[in-house]
């Protein structure tokens, strides 16, 4: 086992991001999509922190903290939306929500 390099972290970040994106694109359950978005955000966090370490700068970590904060706020709003959605049509399927098409 060699030393952990920037490349490893970026690879991990990319993999996590792609997994999250595929989740967003393929799944129909809105809760799963939501969790996938969280995954993408955290993939970004990983790369931010890795770059921060690599460049010996605190900025990466600060950005990561920001992302986590925003993610928390977004989670609150997103869960609220899901709650309203399930109340209205008793389903968590995104394909059933296509009012804009009309």
């Amino acid at each position, binding site marked *: 086992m060699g030393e952990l390099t920037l490349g490893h972290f970026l690879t991990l970040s990319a993999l996590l991001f792609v997994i999250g994106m595929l989740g967003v694109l393929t799944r129909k359950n809105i809760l799963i999509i939501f969790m996938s978005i969280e995954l993408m955000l955290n993939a970004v966090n990983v790369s931010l922190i890795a770059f921060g370490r690599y460049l010996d700068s605190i900025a990466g970590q600060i950005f990561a903290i920001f992302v986590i904060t925003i993610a928390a706020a977004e989670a609150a709003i997103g869960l609220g939306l899901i709650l309203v959605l399930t109340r209205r049509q008793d389903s968590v399927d*995104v394909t059933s929500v*296509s009012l*804009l*098409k009309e």
Partner: protein
Amino acid sequence: MENWLFLIPLMPLLAFAFDLLLGRRFPGKWAHAPAWIAMAVAFVVSLLAVLRVARTGEPVSQTLWRWMPGADLGGFDIPFTIFIDQLTSVMILIITGIGFLIHIYSAGYMGHDPGYYRFFAYLSLFVFAMLVLVLGDNFLVMFFGWEGVGLCSYLLIGYWFDRRSAGDAAKKAFIVNRVGDFGFLIGMFLLFTTFGTLSFFGPEGIFANLAGKGEGVLTAIGLLLFVGAMGKSAQGPLTVWLPDAMEGPTPVSALIHAATMVTAGVYMMVRAHALYEAAPVALLVVLIVGLATCFIAATIGLVQNDIKRVMAYSTVSQLGYMVFAVGAGAFIPAIFHLMTHAFFKALLFLGAGSVIHGMHEEQDMRKMGGLRRSMPITYATLVAGSLALAGFPLTAGFFSKDEILVGTWFEGYPLAAIVGWIVAFMTAFYTFRMIFLTFHGQPRFDPEHVHPHESPPVMTLPLIALAIPSLLLGIIVGLPAEAGPIHQWLGPVFEGGGGHADAARTMAVAVAAAEEAHHPPAWLTVGGFAASTLLSLAGIALAWLMYGTGRISAQAMGRRFAGLYALFYNKWYLDDIYQALIVAPLDVLARILWKWVDAGFIDGIVNGVAHLTGGVSQQLRKVQTGVVSNYALAIALGTVIIVGVYLLLGPQFLAR
């Protein structure tokens, strides 16, 4: 004193604003009050200014502001200056004096009209514009007033806009005037390119720098400006609007279409006399057009039956006198006639208005007759005005018309003077034909339904006030002939003394000075008097024989000269010619433009664009599925493509 000159045009403008904005809210009918006050103040200030001019012999002026002073426009610098010399004095006294009387009269005449305040607002605006026209000391300010009076004329002819004929007449007047104004505009452009200024006076002004300019360009300017004068003063081919303008209320006909606005062309040419004297060809054209108009309008006036139309044609004919006097170079007689004509023609129109008012809006003279018993004051004043118009000896019109004819003969156009005398005979005839038809003989209206009555004092007082100068003005300012007070008063304008000192260099002034030096010989003056007297009396006598006693049958005359009668009655077919040559082709063209170009082509483009947008949108809306996953996929693919292009092409291509 100079600091108060701005009040002259400002007062009518204030009255206009006041009446237009607040007139509707006035309790009762008080819209005439601000207009009366404004006219009175303007008249008094004008009078003070004129007295000052009389005392010092120098023009007075006040520069209010300069138009766009900072802009670098190649020497285009227009001072908004009020300038009063002896010539302007005559004009402003006519405008404010007669204007005041007509404002008073209008309160009676328009008393029953629902648009009372609107009428006074327009009338005041007109007076403002007319004053600006004569007070300006350069062509642009004059043009501003020129257009302003055109607008007011349009508004007031079409004052009873619910009558179709009034609306048509207003449009006709406006459009015909546009033709003239176009010539005026081009003339101004040419003036500016030639002289680099539009100012009349001063060392840099137009009249001081005529020497050395080509006669060709001066002739062109003179002719173009004359096109403008033809429009305003209803001369030559552009006469057609003035008779139709009688659709407007009668005080408007009196003020605008007889006394003031229509004389603007004459005023302009006299103001620019130096320019015209340097362009003899232009002057000759002015003479010919004026003479032809004078003659043609008089012949039409012989056979009209509408009392206002008789006067309309007589106005055109009298304007023709002034214009050909200008063309002959007899400027002072032209202004003299302008002045006397303003009084007696305003009187005639107001008198006709009084008749129409008393006859319940009847204008056809064939349905009148015998009115002298029921309207004694109107009858007396109207006879006074008619005597002046007919050139009855010792009335105002006699002196001024005679001076024009003698002056024209003396300036070297005896033939024109002879035509003028023939027209004088016709004038006397048709004027008294109107008097006899209207006031003498048996009533030809239905006494059961029509009860002619004398007008209220608010209308008859202005009539009396105008009748006095119509009779006496000639004796006061016109004697001795060709050298009376009017000549002494206006002399400095044409001599180059005083405020025109810088014009002394010009050739024109040399001509004017030479003119002043020798008067027409005594035989011409006396002969002119004799001819004018005889022809005037002969015209009146013929009218008496035909319409007063009926000894000569008018119908028989009409049958004997059927061809001429038809020609005159149909106004020399001028309107029909325009209809065939201009109106009808334009109508066809407009129809083509409307049906094909507008409805077909332009609307086609507009509708085509709309259809195209709609069709494309119909296709594009299918992209919007409403499924969030599809949008997310589009975002992701888009990002991948953008980043991919960036990585493939490399930053060096996209950096700049």
